[in-house]
């Protein structure tokens, strides 16, 4: 993107690397602690020993229940948590720039309702087996993205306010359809659906899904990062951005598609986990910078860390019973958001 950028003071490559390094380090430590905690506690040194053995290919010398817990249950769950957290946080930051609205989050455009509807339809048909559920959720998300995109256009251009309204209306319409289906469902499916709406990481994802998610996520984050400088300009206003040589229509479409894809992936893997997409970008703005070149990678890392943290709490506070992670992020997220809001308006 050879667009002239508004030069924000203080951003050097070194500073960006330092910020990302700190966040990545914290993420690694959090994950290690998360691996050792749970209904069955495993000391950190034993986790490390097991991981070394795993890397060396000596899986058989790991006690079988540790092997199952670390590498079949907790490990994939932590990886999925990271992917979901990163996807939601970057999607949140993207939508906030796209809609020029600090309240925008990954769900504001109805993507999660679309995904939930897809999942619930599959639950009604009675096929909660592996490939169908995430696939249906993703198709639901994709269809919603397409409809909202079509509704959000004005004279062939993506118009922020129209898009926002189209998203809100679509979301509430889809929620109503979900409520209708849920009252007509019998008890068993209803419980599965409730977990879906709350956001839950307890069902292990198959490996292929994690890989697919990971690859698509890196691609989408890369795309958004590529236009980060344009997003900085876009926040000042579309006309200004056009004057500065930004291809506004193209940037908006690209960001919209990437952010929707990330949201769709997150929701189809874990249901709708709230607050992360709203909170994390604001947290990064407060801690580091509101420059999108910092905001995008930092949000990804911080989002990943916060979800791992929240899910660790979800697994441990009332162990061995597990809470849906969405309940933890909502309980912790809402007060934290209010705190940030107050602090900002004071300062």
């Amino acid at each position, binding site marked *: 993107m050879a667009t002239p950028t508004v030069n924000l003071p203080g951003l050097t490559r070194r500073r960006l690397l330092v910020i990302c390094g700190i966040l990545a380090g914290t993420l690694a430590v959090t994950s290690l602690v998360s691996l050792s905690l749970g209904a069955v506690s495993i000391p950190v040194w034993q986790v490390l020993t097991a991981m070394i053995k795993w890397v060396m290919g000596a899986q058989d010398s790991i006690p079988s229940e540790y092997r199952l817990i670390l590498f079949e249950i907790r490990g994939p769950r932590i990886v999925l948590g990271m992917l979901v957290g990163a996807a939601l946080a970057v999607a949140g930051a993207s939508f906030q720039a796209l809609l020029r609205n600090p309240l925008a989050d990954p769900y504001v455009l109805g993507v999660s309702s679309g995904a939930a509807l897809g999942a619930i339809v599959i639950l009604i048909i009675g096929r909660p087996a*592996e490939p169908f559920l995430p696939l249906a959720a993703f198709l639901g998300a994709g269809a919603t993205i397409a409809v909202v995109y079509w509704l959000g256009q004005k004279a062939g251009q993506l118009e922020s306010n129209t898009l926002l309204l189209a998203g809100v209306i679509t979301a509430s319409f889809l929620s109503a359809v979900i409520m209708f289906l849920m009252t007509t469902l*019998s008890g*068993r499916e209803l419980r599965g659906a409730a977990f879906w709406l709350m956001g839950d990481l307890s*069902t292990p994802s198959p490996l292929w899904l994690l890989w697919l998610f990971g690859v698509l996520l890196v691609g989408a984050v890369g795309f958004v990062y590529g236009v980060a400088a344009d997003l900085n300009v876009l926040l000042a206003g579309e006309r200004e951005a056009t004057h500065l040589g930004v291809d506004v229509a193209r940037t908006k479409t690209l960001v919209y598609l990437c952010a929707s894809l990330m949201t769709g992936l997150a929701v189809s893997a874990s249901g709708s986990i709230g607050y992360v997409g709203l909170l994390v970008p604001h947290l990064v703005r407060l801690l580091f910078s509101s420059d999108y070149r910092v905001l995008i990678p930092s949000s990804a890392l911080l989002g990943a860390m916060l979800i791992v943290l929240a899910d660790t709490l979800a697994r441990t506070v009332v162990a*061995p*019973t597990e809470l849906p992670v969405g309940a933890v992020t909502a309980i912790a997220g809402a007060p934290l958001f209010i705190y940030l809001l107050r602090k900002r308006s004071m300062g």
Partner: protein
Amino acid sequence: MRENFRTSLWLALALVLALKAGPELLAGPVALAARQVTDEAGRSVRLPERIERVISLAPNLTEIIYALGAENRLVGVTDYCDFPEAARAKPRVGSVLSPSAEQIVALKPDLVLATVAGNRAESVATLERLGVPVYATNPRSVDDVLASILHVGDVLGEEQAALRLASDLRHRLDALGRRLADVSLPRVLFVVWEEPLISAGRESFLTDAIARAGGQSITATFSAAWPRLSLEAALEEQPDFLIFAYHGSPAEKAAERSLRQAQLKHKPGWREFRAVRQGKVIVVSDTINRPSPRLFDAMEELARTLHPEVF
């Protein structure tokens, strides 16, 4: 000559195949030491010949395991497994809806028993993926409850105890049926939940249990297992009795009954039930909600309340 050649070729091929297959044929019986059974949800489950460590994911299954005398092999229960008293002391694996897979794996079970109605399909799929065999029960009638007892006895290797228990319960059920042979069936509304009003439908064992206890549920033909119905529709039906379930001693149940009766008399909508005005609100033991041996106690209790004249 050519014929012979061809025959000998075939023979040679057969010999090679036999030699190749030989070790496997010999190993066959060892590999078959594991059993292949089909559970009540129609899933094919591979079980070791002898189950030494079993985990129960539902209170009714815990009760069945105790009733079969297999409690020594029960190594994990849910937070809701409260009967018999000793079950509370067993290691917990979490709630019925979200048990911890980690905890279950750490207890190294040979078998996990689950219910289709109570547990989530995702929990079962997760355990299956981790290589833990899961046998799911799915009783939708009182006869199914007896069948479940036999099936659980079968997978646990307690066939004799299960047969004794099931035939004992069967006798009690038949005796109850004979007693109630000539009574007229009152129409009842079983209140699973008050607001919103939820009752039991066609797919629930509860509907069958009510019928066996000499009642006719006004929601017996509803297609959902736990249908939600409007108060209007229930009032239109004007059931002869309203039934509530309650956990407690007979004295506590009697107190609960007077309390309910008094409350409903003043509650808008509910006070329009003829049954409420006539004092025909019944409180029955909450074991009516559990497809376990104690379901039969609750059925007898309900029958006694609905038809005191034949007892």
